[in-house]
């Protein structure tokens, strides 16, 4: 260390490595802050909404129709509409989406058509939801004359979540090792028997995770339903599919409700947020508590389900 030139190099090296270390730990803090940022905002959002709307969460709120007076308004037509739409969306999208996923993952040959379908699905997953609304408006509402009905809304949302269900079905199937398929074929099973008895049960947990996430998205969608013309103020319910009244046999089934107009929770919230009167903001916040509760519970179930299956299944 007596050589002055060497000592200069050495000290600059020490300084530089000190700077590097500080940069490194500085970046760690930046990374933690960035990761925490979104989560802190989420927390603030939830607290803010609870402060605004928790007072309105009473029994009356759930069993009242919307009203011109903010303190009397409720979400009855909204939550009933949301239940209708979600059940219908699931009934349409689940078989089609899972079927398409099974075809693309298990049956499709690697050719031009399959490649085209894959690119197409990736693109559909990124098409803005409001465009699906325009599709629903042009196709279901006008062309098929379904008007602003529950059926038109359910069909529109089903098309919207179809790509999500297809993609998660494919991922779930891809995670199953090919040895399972080979074993099944070796026992003489046909392709469909393999899918039906081996692959589908094994993939079901992961498929359900994707399905629940897709349904939670459908529950929160607003724009496509506004675009197809779902009403923002509605003081009656779609006709119930099951009624207990009248004469024999005392229980009546009817699908007439499918053709009735509807509103859903997110649209009701949007309607209240866009009113100038401050009183409705509390209603909006209360509606959000219900909607957020619904989506967060669904997400929690999906996450737990995924966790459960990842832990349990060891190939």
């Amino acid at each position, binding site marked *: 260390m007596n050589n002055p030139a060497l000592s200069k190099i050495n000290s600059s090296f020490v300084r530089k490595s000190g700077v*590097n270390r500080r940069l490194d730990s500085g970046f760690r803090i930046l*990374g933690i802050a960035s990761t925490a940022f979104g989560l802190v905002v*989420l927390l603030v959002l939830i607290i803010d909404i609870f402060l605004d709307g928790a007072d309105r969460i009473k029994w009356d709120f759930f069993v009242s129709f919307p009203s011109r007076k903010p303190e009397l308004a409720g979400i009855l037509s909204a939550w009933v509409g949301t239940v209708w739409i979600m059940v219908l969306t699931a009934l349409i999208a689940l078989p089609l989406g899972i079927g398409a996923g099974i075809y693309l993952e298990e049956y499709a040959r690697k050719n031009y058509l399959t490649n085209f379908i894959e690119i197409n699905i990736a693109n*559909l997953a990124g098409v*803005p939801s409001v465009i699906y609304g325009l599709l629903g408006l042009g196709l279901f509402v006008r062309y098929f004359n379904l008007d602003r009905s529950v059926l038109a809304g359910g069909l529109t949302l089903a098309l919207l979540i179809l790509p999500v269900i297809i993609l998660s079905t494919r991922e779930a199937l891809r995670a199953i090792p090919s040895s399972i398929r080979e074993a099944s074929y070796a026992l003489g099973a046909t392709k469909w028997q393999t899918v039906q008895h081996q692959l589908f049960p094994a993939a079901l947990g992961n498929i359900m995770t994707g399905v629940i996430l897709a349904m939670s998205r459908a*529950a*929160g969608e607003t724009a496509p339903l506004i675009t197809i013309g779902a009403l923002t103020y509605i003081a009656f319910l779609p006709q119930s599919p099951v009624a207990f009244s009248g004469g024999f046999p005392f229980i009546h089934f009817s699908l007439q409700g499918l053709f009735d107009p509807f509103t859903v929770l997110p649209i009701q919230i949007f309607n209240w947020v866009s009113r100038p009167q401050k009183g409705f903001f509390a209603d909006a916040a209360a509606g959000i508590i219900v*909607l957020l509760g619904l989506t967060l519970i669904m997400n929690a179930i999906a996450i737990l389900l995924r966790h459960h299956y990842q832990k349990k299944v060891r190939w």
Partner: protein
Amino acid sequence: MLLKRKFILKTKEILIERLLFFCSLLSVVTTLGIILVLLFETLDFFKEVPVWQFLTDTQWTPLFVNKHFGILPLLCGTFLTTLIAISVAIPVGLASAVYLSEYASLKIRNIVKPLMEILAAVPTVVYGYFALLFVTPLLRKIIPDLSGFNSLSSGIVMGIMIIPLISSLSEDAMRAVPMGLREGAYAVGSNRLQVALRIVLPAALSGIIAASILAISRAIGETMIVAIAAGQQPRLTLNPLVPIQTITAYIVQISLGDTPHGTLEYRTIFACGMSLFIMTFILNIFSFKLKRRFQEIYE
């Protein structure tokens, strides 16, 4: 008897395969449906409004007596909110992705990632409420000139909404970088930051760009936040403090009114939808191709 059974089994197999094939074809039909519906109404629209006027007129006033049909103000509003959103989302999302992929322990990652997913699962109408009634009043304390409706707060909130998208897709791309590259860099004395910035980021670049493009596409198509918090005044400005209108917010505004079917006003939303579809389509395809490329390299 056996032959007959075999025949039934075979027919069943073929029928099921056909059925499943039609399910997957439905996605192509959906795309076709979108294009046809948009195309027919847009063509009718362009019969009355020349294309060049649509693309160059600087005013958008279809609901006024003096009608102008220039998409530029709406495009400008969309551009402005998207720009604000991605200037929030890309830096924050990337920093968070680098942290989660290179710094964080497995335990932290397992806790944080599901929480991030929740951030992405919050319905957009909730974010709209938050932008209008929390972020705007908060920002007004700092910027007194801010209007009640503005692109700044809706852009920021939209940015927060797409942080998880950028963060999780970029992290996937970074984790796909082979461990050997990192180990090589550590072996010659790099620290974590150097490995992250000089090895992992460049190697994962195409995946990160794909994620960012997807985020831009998402921001362009985002509807409820801007419909609630950005206002309903189409104007050609880059000032983030004043009310504007985006393409998506215009579609919502018209859909809420009682615009009769078959009128020019009704067709404007399809012309707007067409513009929106073309923009997001190009971005989505580009992102998909990029993503596929980076997957091919390392798998």
